[in-house]
């Protein structure tokens, strides 16, 4: 079972790495942010798999940190995007 879990971890990490090509190529900034979001979720799943495979419970705490961090990164991106858009062209138009 341990080797299966580790093989799945490897698979997920490869998937996330392929998804990160979107950050390089990205059609828009939103697409880049989506790739980072996938990195967050894939990283969470991979860490959980490793934690259970090796029987180390503490990994779940690392996972909690990562999940909060990924969410905050996306919120920070959207806030920065919003304020730069306001500065550039339409100062009066809110959402």
């Amino acid at each position, binding site marked *: 079972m341990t080797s299966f879990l580790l093989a799945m971890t490897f*698979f997920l990490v490869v998937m996330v790495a392929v998804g990160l090509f979107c950050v390089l190529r990205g059609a828009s900034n*939103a697409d880049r942010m989506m790739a980072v979001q996938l990195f967050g979720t894939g990283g969470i799943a991979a860490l959980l798999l490793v934690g259970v495979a090796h029987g180390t419970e503490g990994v*779940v705490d690392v996972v909690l940190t990562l999940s909060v961090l990924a969410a905050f990164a996306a919120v920070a991106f*959207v806030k920065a995007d919003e304020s730069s858009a306001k500065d550039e062209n339409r100062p009066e138009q809110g959402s």
Partner: protein
Amino acid sequence: MRIAADIFTIVAILTGAFFFLAGTVGLLRFPDTLTRLHALTKADNLGLGLVVLGLLPQSNSVFAGLKMILVWLLVLLASATVSQLIARAARRDGPPS
């Protein structure tokens, strides 16, 4: 009993990995931003959910299992919020297509 739990784990985690594969392929191949967001949220919600579900029979204690479910619920909440925010940013950046 042990074998049944192991089979359940393998099936659930393989299904979860499939959703991650689908999410990555969708992110790379779908034509516009909103469809890519759709593909991504499948990986977030179902992929991680199935992986957590598959890991439950392997965890040592009930408490550890509950904590993993809690992580999934947190990610669900966060990804629902974040996908709304990203969609709004994408719509502001370019014309909706």
